[in-house]
């Protein structure tokens, strides 16, 4: 949402950058927390953790793009965010689905 706003010129770069940084940190922290809570990790939780890591990394790349004022880099990072979010949803659904 913040990337859409930034791309439309509705959010200042400082704000968009700080928001992305905060999101990346929150995601990284969630990944670390999950790793600590799931030791040893199951295959599903490994997938969830990997997707969270990709989301965090994509948020970092988007932040770098915003700071550099590079719409192409931001657009690419947005695609990566969307893909990682879809993966996360799929892994999460698999991890909470009842085992047959």
């Amino acid at each position, binding site marked *: *949402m*913040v990337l859409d*706003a930034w791309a439309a010129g*509705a*959010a*200042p770069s400082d*704000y968009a950058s*700080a*928001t992305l940084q905060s*999101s990346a940190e929150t995601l990284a922290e969630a990944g670390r927390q999950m790793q600590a809570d799931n030791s040893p990790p199951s295959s599903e939780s490994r997938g969830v953790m990997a997707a969270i890591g990709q989301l965090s990394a994509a948020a970092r790349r988007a932040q770098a793009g915003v700071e550099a004022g590079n719409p192409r880099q931001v657009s690419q990072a947005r695609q990566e965010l969307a893909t990682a979010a879809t993966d996360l949803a799929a892994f999460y659904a698999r991890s909470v689905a009842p085992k047959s």
Partner: protein
Amino acid sequence: MKKLLEISLGIVTSVGGFLEVGSMATAAQAGATFGFRLVWAILLGTICIIFLVEMAGRFAAVSGHTITDGIRERFGFNAFLWPLLAILLVNFMVMSAEIGGVSIAAELATGIGFQWWALPVAFLAWLFLWKGTFGFIEKGVAILGLVTLCFVVAAVMLKPDWKQVAAGAVPGLPEHDPASYWFMAVSILGASISPYLFMFYSSGAVEDHWDKTYLGTNRAIAGLGMSFGGTISLGVLIVAALVLGAHGINQVNDYHQLPLMLIPIFGFWGFVLFVASLAIACFGAALEIGLQQAYLVAQGFGWTWGEDLKPRSDPAFCGVYTLSLLVAAIPIALGLDPLKLTIFSMAVTAASLPLTVVPFLFLLNDERYVGEHRNGMISNAAVIFIVALGFVLAVVSIPLQILGGS
């Protein structure tokens, strides 16, 4: 004509001064996480604050006393000490949250971290209190606070399903996350019924030399001003539900998410309006709480007090707001998350309400103070019910929220 002007100005002041960091953050969180399901909490909180503000004004106009004055005189200093300590502590947390709100607005506007703004904000607030008059503090900042009406405009522009909004006015059980739901309900009640609101109002009535001829004015200001103020909180909840919820933001756990509420509606001006609303609303509230701390201590200990007096005439009064602002800025300057502090302090406010409201209700039923203008059955029952509900929910949900760790 003069009375009509006073009523209009009083209503405008109440509306502009209603929204602060607590009502904004709790309504935004509630809307994003639970849609319209917590509309009832805003309504209950607004009804309760209408009653309390009306009582505070009536008490001051009829007896010539502020609430603090009255409690100390009626119950003695030893019994007064407990409510005094509870209110000082709650006000300290809320003032810290308000300074945090202004600091966040400054960070959003400049990109410089909020921690760096806490002490300059506290200094600016101190300067306003040191140099300003009561009328300037009460009306000047509150009139600027009318910018918060942008949330109502945004809510109307989003064309919500009003039937669904109305359905939220009936309390119900949540579909998910019940601990968080009840904690949010408590926080909304705490934000709406902050003791500083009605205590400040009673001190203001004494500063403005109200007498019995102001009873009608008081009723109009309490009823209309607080109702319109509650409408702004409702606007925040509706906007959060329709904008944040619709974009998959179901948890507001980072203050960076908040400006996103208005950007899709007003574009870049949405960002500007949000920053202005947060800064002005929180700054106004910080000034009022700073003054309220000084009123509380000065009235409690029988010192000379009055915002319209020169600082050299009431140095202890000025010393209290100076110290309060400085101490309240410290947690924010040390990096405490203002959003988490806000939500928590609102819940603690709800838990502390019986300590402040119950002695006040005794005063409002005491003929020696209010004569024939005693409370009626309905106002007593409504306030007791809402305050008891807030207290019970707080006692149950605060430990659950702390243990849940979210």
